[in-house]
């Protein structure tokens, strides 16, 4: 029997049965050492809007009690695999849970026009093949933002939001073009109001950024611990 996994968390022994999991399945707490895993008994998970929202609802319900480390939608594992993962990564998970504790994720979207990217060769200056491969590379890299652009945007936001940002991840889609930059901030839950106020001030100060804020979210963007993929699959 496989288990559908929602999140890892500490200090959770029971779950509110009024909230259904994916495919209407009951959600239960699986204790592995000091870590609680919210799971449903499930062999397969159809990709439906209902199931995605069920996943989100289960994770969000935990957020009112503690900070969860949400799994990505669709993660299935046996109990043995979960035990192996948690035992192997015991220290990393404990450190991550400590890092996330008491925090939520706040997301910012902005029409970010990097001065760095403006100085690089545009797609018009390269051949169609190069442009195509650049696009594919960006797709594969996902949300990775070049270091120089990351530093520029990060510096701006840290100047304005300062100590409210406990951790930060930045991305831009599509990179190198005037477009949408995404910024994920880990913020202490007690400072959500202050965060919104400071974003509003920045919005008034820099209206061209067209800042949009959403949240609070469970810390999906900060949940991953170091992955084994690079060594296993040669991904760089």
């Amino acid at each position, binding site marked *: 029997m496989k288990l559908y*996994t929602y*999140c*890892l968390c500490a200090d959770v022994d029971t779950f509110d049965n009024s909230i259904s999991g994916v495919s209407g399945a009951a959600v239960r707490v699986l204790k592995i050492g000091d870590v609680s895993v919210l799971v449903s008994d499930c062999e*397969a*998970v*159809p*990709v439906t*809007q209902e199931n*995605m*929202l069920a*996943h*989100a609802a289960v*994770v969000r319900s935990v957020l*009112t*009690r*503690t*900070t969860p*480390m*949400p*799994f*990505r*939608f*669709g*993660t*299935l*594992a046996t109990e043995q*695999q*979960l035990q192996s*993962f948690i035992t192997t990564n015991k220290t990393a998970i404990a450190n991550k849970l400590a890092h996330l*504790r*008491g925090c*939520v994720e706040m*997301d910012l979207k902005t029409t970010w026009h990097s001065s760095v990217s403006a100085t690089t060769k545009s797609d018009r200056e390269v051949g169609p093949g190069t442009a195509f491969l650049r696009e594919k590379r960006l*797709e*594969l890299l*996902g949300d990775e933002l070049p270091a120089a652009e990351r530093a520029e945007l990060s510096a701006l936001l840290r100047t304005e939001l300062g100590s409210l940002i406990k951790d930060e991840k930045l991305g831009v889609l599509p990179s190198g073009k005037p477009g949408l930059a995404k910024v994920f901030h880990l913020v*202490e*839950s*007690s*400072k*959500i*109001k202050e965060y*919104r106020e400071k974003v509003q001030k920045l919005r008034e100060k820099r209206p061209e950024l067209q800042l949009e*804020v*959403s*949240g*609070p*979210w*469970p810390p*999906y*963007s900060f*949940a*991953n*611990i170091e*992955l*084994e*993929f690079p060594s*296993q*699959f040669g*991904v760089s």
Partner: protein
Amino acid sequence: MADFDQIIVSEEFENTDVSLLETLDHVLNRGLVIAGEITISVADIDLIFVGLNVLVSSVETANEVVRKRKPE
């Protein structure tokens, strides 16, 4: 450090501003990935995502790769 008892009663926390699209983006594109294997099925066809947006393959092909990787 924030106390989560405060969160429960916090108006700010209740005043969430999240859209359906963003919710789906979060659950599909972010979150913890374990052991390099996420299994989902679309229209009764199982797929495996290996890594983060690196490769999507059929279960059959992925299992074949795994079998080849295992020592005899």
